[in-house]
């Protein structure tokens, strides 16, 4: 089966990203596919390239990227939720006259429509918030 995940909690604030990551790995180890993860609300902070946890702690962004490279999981981030919270790509940074940015591939800024598409495409959608 194909699974989609909606993540709405920030690392180091909520257990949601941790539960979501462990769930995604278990889904894969049971022979299913994780089609994509959609980050919304506080979840958009998972995509921040500037996140710098202490060395003895998991870097959540790196963990998502490993999931992308290992299993083709798409990592979509709601653009409206991200911009108002200070997470943006190089393209958005240019558009807004910013010299800096903190989101890059394989994370993609996208609209909420992508969440609905993910839900329709997948056999299961599960929220971690």
């Amino acid at each position, binding site marked *: 089966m194909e699974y989609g995940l*909606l993540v709405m909690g920030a690392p180091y604030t909520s257990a949601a990203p941790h539960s979501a990551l462990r769930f995604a790995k278990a889904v894969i180890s049971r022979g299913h596919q994780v089609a994509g993860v959609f980050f919304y*609300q506080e979840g958009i902070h998972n995509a921040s390239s500037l996140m710098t946890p202490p060395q003895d702690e998991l870097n959540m962004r790196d963990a998502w990227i490993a999931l992308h490279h290992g299993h083709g999981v798409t990592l979509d981030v709601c653009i409206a939720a991200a911009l*108002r919270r200070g997470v943006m790509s190089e393209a958005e940074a240019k558009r807004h006259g910013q010299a800096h940015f903190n989101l890059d591939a394989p994370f993609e800024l996208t*609209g*909420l*429509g992508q969440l609905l598409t993910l*839900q329709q495409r997948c056999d299961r959608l599960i*929220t971690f918030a």
Partner: protein
Amino acid sequence: MSHEHERLVIIRHAPYSSNALREGLDVALVAAAFGQTVSLLFLGQGVLALLKEQAAGAPGQKATLPTIDMLEMYDIDQLLVPQSALDALNLQAAQLVDGATVVADDTLPELVQRHSYVMNF
């Protein structure tokens, strides 16, 4: 009648104190714009989003009442509130915006079951 592509968005957060309410409504609006039939269920603190006497927000905080008022334009006309949620806040149905419908609590399980997409905000 089939409810194959009907969506239920459950709103459980009060205005102003977080962005959860607004971002939940955004999902409802986008789904409606994509042609889905969308109903809203207001539970707990979420009921406060329907109070019609809400004034403009304190400086810098955007109000959500205008968005609630806009829902009908998107053909979102099911704004459901369980009686117990009203009671818990000592509110009367007359204090809510036009279009809010009070439903009996024992209809909730069936309501949630019959929608193909249900999401909590």
